[in-house]
C-alpha cells in the first residue's frame, strides 16, 4: 500500500474492484493489486498480478481498474500486468479469507511455502465452510476454476469449493 496520500487515494479506488468470479473478494483481498504510483504529471500506474496464468478474470479486473480510476477523474491511467514475483495465495488478506468462507468457499489451508520440492505431500484436512466439520472428502482436485478444488462435507453432506494453495 502506497505511503503518500495521493497514491493512497488512487489505491483505495482501485481496491474497490472485485473478482468477477468471486464478487465478495476485492483485488486487494486477493493480493492481485500490487502497486499504485502517481507520477509528477498526475499519470497513474497500477500493477496487477495474475492469479493463475490462464485466468480469464484478469482481463475483466484490469478493465474494471481502468474504469474505476477513469470515473474517479484520473485521465491518464496505465494498468501493467506483472508476473514477478509470482502470485501466491499467501497474499490473500485475513479479511479476504473470512469473506471467502462466509461466501461458502473454504480458504487455502496452510502456506504455499510448505509446497517446496520433495516427496512428502501432506494435505491438511479441509474444513467445511458451512458446519466447520473436518470430516470432508475431495471430489475433484480441479473444480469450477483452476484455483478451486471440489469437496463434499460428510457431516452436513453439502458440496463446497476449496481455494487451493498456490
Amino acid at each position, binding site marked *: 500500500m502506497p505511503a503518500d496520500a495521493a497514491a493512497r487515494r488512487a489505491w483505495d479506488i482501485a481496491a474497490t474492484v472485485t473478482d468477477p468470479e468471486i464478487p465478495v473478494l476485492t483485488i486487494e483481498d486477493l493480493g492481485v493489486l500490487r502497486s499504485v504510483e502517481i507520477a509528477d504529471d498526475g499519470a497513474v500506474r497500477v500493477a496487477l498480478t495474475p492469479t*493463475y*496464468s*490462464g485466468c480469464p478474470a484478469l482481463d475483466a479486473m484490469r478493465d474494471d481498474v481502468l474504469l474505476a480510476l477513469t470515473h474517479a477523474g484520473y485521465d491518464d491511467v496505465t494498468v501493467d*500486468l*506483472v508476473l514477478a514475483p509470482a502470485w*501466491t495465495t499467501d497474499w490473500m488478506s485475513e479479511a479476504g479469507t473470512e469473506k471467502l468462507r462466509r461466501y461458502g468457499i473454504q480458504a487455502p489451508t496452510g502456506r504455499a511455502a510448505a509446497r517446496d520440492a520433495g516427496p512428502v505431500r501432506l494435505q491438511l484436512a479441509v474444513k467445511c465452510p458451512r458446519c466447520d466439520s473436518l470430516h470432508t472428502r475431495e471430489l475433484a*482436485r*480441479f473444480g469450477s476454476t*483452476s484455483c478451486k478444488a471440489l469437496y463434499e462435507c460428510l457431516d452436513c453432506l453439502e458440496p463446497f469449493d476449496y481455494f487451493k494453495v498456490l
Partner: protein
Amino acid sequence: MSTVPETHADDLHDVHGDVTVDQVELAEELAGAGLTGTGQTASPDAAAYAMRLGDDALVLAQQLGLWITRAPELEEDVALGNIGLDLIGHARSLLHYAGSATDRSEDDLAYWRDEPEWRNAWLFEQPNGDFAHTIARQLVASCYLLELYRDLTASTDPTLAAIAAKSAKEVDYHRDHAVQWTLRLAGGTDESRRRMITAVADTWPYVDELFEDDDLVERLAADGVAVLPSSLRDRFDAAIDEVFAEAALERPVGRTAFTASGGGRRGRHTEHLGPLLAEMQVLARQHPGASW
C-alpha cells in the same frame, strides 16, 4: 465479433482479401496480454527458445480442450479444461515474449504460422488416443515441464525466469493430476491397467526428443538463459520411476526416439500437427483482423 470484414463473391480468388492482421487493433483488444514482467524485448535466440516452450504449451492446451464434453466424467471435463487454460496462459506469456523480438503479437504467432514454423516437440502433438493415452502424455509432459520450469526460474533472462516461476506452481498441480490418474488406471480394472500399459508404451518413443540439446540451447545455456534439456533427464527419470514403482508399471526400455531426421524443434512434424493447427487457426484465418 464486432468487426468482420465483408466478403464478396469476387473476393474469393483470395480468401484473405487484402486484409491483414491488424496489429494495432489486436494489441488494443489484447492489452490484457501485455504481461509486462519486465517490459523486456527478447534477443533473437531467447525469442526462438521462448517460441519452443510456448508452442509446446499451446499445442498441448489445444489437445486438452478437445476432451471437454468427452472426458470419462464431468469433473474431468473441468480438470482437463482448466489444465489447458493454465497452459494457454503460459503460451500467451511465452509467445508474447517471443514476438517482442520481431514485433509480432502472440495471436499473430499462434494463428498465422504454418506447420513448418512450429517448434513444439512431437510429444505434445500426439493425438489424445483413449483417456489412458492422454494421461500418459500428461504424465510425461508435466514431469518434464516441472523440472524445466523449476530450473528456468534461475534464468539470467528476467522475463523467462518470471514466466517459469509462475508456471512451475501450476504445472505442479498438473503433475499431481496426472500421477493420480496413472495410479488409478494402473491399479484399477484389468482393462484400465492394460490400457495404461499400452499408453505408456506408445508414448515412450516421444520422450527422448524432450531432452535433446542443440546449438540454440547450448548457446543460451552458456549465458544462463536457457536450461539444457539433457540436464533434466536424470530427475525426470527419477520422478517417473517413483510413480511407476507405486503403480507397478515399468519404464519401457529399448524404445529409441525416431527423431534423427525430423524433430519438432527443427520444424518437422508428425502428421498430427496439421489437422490440429487447421482447427485452431480456422476462425482467425477466415476473418483476418476480426476482434471478438
